[in-house]
């Protein structure tokens, strides 16, 4: 267990720091926008409701209508609404409940499109970020498939903003070296003098370490 313990939190410091920024900055922005939106949205509506004379009057009239109904038909029950999410409203009068229900409904409606916009931004951001990783992984995977099939002419080409450029360069360098070696071995194997060819091949392979060397 102790052997598997992570010794270095930063294996690739620049990459990790970059990713920390990629994740934290959008999250911070999203959180700030959301909180600000809710704060402004809800309290703006509350203040509107109580400062806009017409709205205030309409709300009071609406609640009065309900109260008249309830006075004439006492058995009328309140329908389930978003207000039932707030336990605090139990302490309010029917009149106050109706006023706040209207405010809440109005706020919910106005926040709906903001939510839709936020979801679109988050979706786009997620696709963008994940693509920076998923794209290179896909290309590496295809390169390995080609190598498995014996095609050493394959190379990994990444987009400018993709992650993994250094790894791709190293892999491409390794592939190039292997490709050259195999190409030379292929040319030597086609020579007429078989014993001379075997000697050349042995020389070329002498620096290559494989499981056969154990």
């Amino acid at each position, binding site marked *: 267990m102790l052997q598997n313990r992570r010794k270095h939190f930063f294996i690739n410091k620049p990459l990790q720091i970059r990713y920390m920024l990629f994740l934290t900055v959008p999250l911070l922005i999203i959180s700030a926008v959301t909180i600000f939106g809710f704060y402004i949205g809800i309290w703006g509506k509350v203040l509107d409701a109580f400062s806009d004379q*017409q709205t205030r009057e309409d709300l009071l009239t609406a609640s009065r209508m309900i109260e008249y109904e309830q006075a004439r038909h006492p058995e009328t029950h309140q329908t389930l609404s978003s207000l039932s999410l707030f336990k605090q409203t139990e302490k309010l009068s029917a009149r106050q409940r109706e006023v706040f229900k209207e405010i809440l409904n109005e706020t919910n409606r106005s926040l709906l499109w903001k939510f839709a916009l936020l979801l679109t931004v988050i979706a786009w951001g997620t696709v963008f970020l994940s693509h920076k990783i998923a794209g290179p992984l896909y290309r590496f995977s295809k390169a390995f498939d080609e190598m498995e099939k014996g095609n050493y002419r394959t190379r990994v080409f990444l987009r400018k903003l993709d992650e993994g450029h250094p790894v791709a360069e190293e892999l491409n360098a390794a592939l190039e070296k292997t490709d050259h070696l195999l190409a030379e071995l292929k040319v030597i194997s086609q020579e007429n003098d078989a014993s001379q060819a075997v000697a050349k091949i042995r020389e070329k392979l002498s620096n290559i370490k494989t499981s056969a060397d154990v």
Partner: protein
Amino acid sequence: MFKRFIIFLTGILLLSGNSLFSFASFEPTQEDALLLNKIEQDTLQYFIRFSDKKTGLTRDSSRAGSPSSIAATGFALAGYAIGGSRGWMSPELAYSRLLTTLQMLKNKTAHKEGFFYHFVDAQTGKRIWASEASSMDTALVVAGALLAAKYYPGTEVEKLAYEIYARVNWKWMLNGSDFVCMGWTPEAKFLPYYWDCYSELMVLQALAIGAPHHPIPPAAWKKWLRPTEEYHGHKVVYASTGSLFTYQFSHAYIDFRKLMDKNINFFENSKEATLANRDYSLSFSEKYKGYSENSWGLSASLGPGGYKAYGGKPGTGTHDGTIAPYAALSSIVFTPEQSTKAARFFYENYQKNLYGNFGFKDAFNLDKDWWSDEYLGIDQGITLLMLENYLNEEAVWKKFMELAPVQRWIELTGLDKKLQPSKD
């Protein structure tokens, strides 16, 4: 100063009348009579001030943005007739207001089968707030119109009032049942509530049974429930909420003193209900500061938490320390002594917070230091009509009881007119 002198003079003249307060042994002092007259006159101003000048439709409350209420408009019609007859409005103004309002009701106000919507736009008469075509509110506006017609016989006012009445299809509102439905909306059609139990329904029943067109069967009168319960020795046919207004609205127009419904006299019933309501609040006088011997009146009104059907026992008895002055005042024909003392008490102790240009504001709650800053049209209306009956020789009762539809209702339902109940 001149206004005060006129009020004083009116009071003196009223007090000199032989038949004043003839239905009760209690006689208010000259000072009390002046105060009651002042309250009635001030209360009338609500309808003058809060009715649309072009349409005549009256606002439900004095609050800004309040819609027009059909029931309040009905009380306004009665109010203009009273105001004109008492000299509180010029005859021209009273008549023109009546004509404007009735023309609006007849020609431009939204209705279904003659039933007006509970709340309408004061400028256009269109239905608002998804309100229902209301049977009770229509009855109250028709009652006001018919009363006005009686004050102005042979005029356009009378013609329009009867046209509005004739248009109401009372039978349709039964919806095939034995009871009048409370209302109808274009969305939900007939409401699932019916006037099937004692309440303010009697004036509605009277107009529906006595109607010259589309009446409901007279048998409907006997169908509605008359639940009885006793509280503190007061046996009452009671309304479910125990709200005082339910014992008053029908009595504003109909003089039940000489009418016996089998063994029930509904005038006496309202008197007992008023005393029971007062006793109920008194039993909580240690808990609520606002309840006392002269501070009572539990009825549907505004309160610290909005409009509620406050009431006493018998009934659900919902209360929280809120007193509606209109409730005590509108019981003046039943309990003249207690109601007069209450009026004086409210006026002398709470005038600053409770009394304004249009009489008493709707309610107050001392425990929560809450004072209504509003007047409600229907509460103003019942106050005005009850005071008129009490102060001006039962003027409303006398005129309304002479109406042919009312006589027809009495005849068809077999209400006994022979009995003479006690005077006090």
